[in-house]
């Protein structure tokens, strides 16, 4: 499958960067066509500004930088998100990528006069998330898992109706020892391409 790996962490050498490398290697070994999008390394600006918000500004598809991102998303059949969960959800860098690239007519469409959003990325048949949480699982249950709900419920709307969804998460990173982290890397290897 054509897999787009979307990665957001500012520090090279972080555990997240190790997860990214594992993910890319595992996908490559299994024969998938891998496209890595490293938002921080690419210097992506996550801020949707006033000019972009204005109805007079050309649509994202007609602006070179965003058009390139849109083309990569449209080409993908499998999306893999790799990021640390911060404040219950995706880092602002990744949220901004969704705000700016996953816009109307790209990710979804609406009939005139309707609020219902319709899928526009039906070629995507698989979505996987590899993430780490500083806090334990029970804390995140109380917090209500905003990041998981964004990716597993809302972001699913544009995809193929039978798209498979996969959640591979390490909870309690702040308390985790080296053995736990190593075991999680092995789990990513094992589960991702299954």
């Amino acid at each position, binding site marked *: 499958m054509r897999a787009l790996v979307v990665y957001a962490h500012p520090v090279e050498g972080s555990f997240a960067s190790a997860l990214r490398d594992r993910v890319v290697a595992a996908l490559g070994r299994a024969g998938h066509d891998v496209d890595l999008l490293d938002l921080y390394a690419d210097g992506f600006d996550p*801020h949707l500004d006033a000019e972009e918000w204005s109805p007079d500004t050309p649509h994202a598809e007609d602006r070179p930088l965003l058009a390139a991102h849109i083309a990569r998303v449209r080409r993908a059949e499998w999306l893999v998100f790799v990021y640390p969960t911060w404040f219950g959800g995706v880092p602002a860098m990744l949220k901004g990528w969704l705000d700016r690239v996953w816009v109307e007519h790209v990710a979804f469409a609406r009939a005139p006069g309707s*609020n219902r959003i319709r899928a526009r990325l039906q070629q995507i048949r698989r979505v996987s998330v590899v993430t780490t949480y500083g806090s334990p699982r029970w804390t995140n249950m*109380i917090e209500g898992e*905003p990041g998981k709900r964004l990716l597993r419920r809302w972001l699913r709307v544009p995809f193929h109706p039978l798209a498979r969804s996969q959640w591979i998460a390490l909870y309690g990173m702040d308390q985790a020892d080296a053995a736990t982290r190593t075991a999680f890397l092995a789990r990513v290897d094992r589960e991702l391409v299954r």
Partner: protein
Amino acid sequence: MNVLVVHAHPSPTSYSRAVCDTAERALRAAGHDVTVLHLDDEGFRPAMSAAERIAYHSDTPILDPLVERHAGFVRQAEALVFVYPTWWAGPPAIMKGWLERVMVPGVAFHLDPATNRVRPELRHVRRLVGISTYGSSRLYVRVLSDPGRRTILRALRMLCARRCHRTWLALYGMDTSTPAQREAFLTHVERELATL
């Protein structure tokens, strides 16, 4: 009460800005001490930098003077009010980044040195208010859930006073709303915040 209002919308002529201005007016009329942060006007940088990530668990996690200024307002606040348009099920990146970069150890919480677990530091925040507009209908948001609301009323709430009072004000179906509905929502916001 000392109230900090945090607003995110890129356009100064947006409806979101009108909602925020209405909230500010109602709070001032009620005699509160109000600070409003329009994150877009302030040029707040949404993404945590590599240097900030590395400093995050040190004694000085704040490196940016703008973040330091905002953290000062947070430390004084007895009420926090968030106003934003819901984009992709939550606050715009600039507000998500504000939570990540301002609500850091030493401001919003600290990690217990023995257990490395989060200990709240926003016990002075007794009121938490979220005000948002949605493109989707109320039913659609209910079915798919509301991650933005959970971020504010549940995740952030865990760091606030034990008996912190929470309020959520929402206008759904924004894109098909009538001027009368939008006007009615402003009145609703004004009334709710007058009795914070």
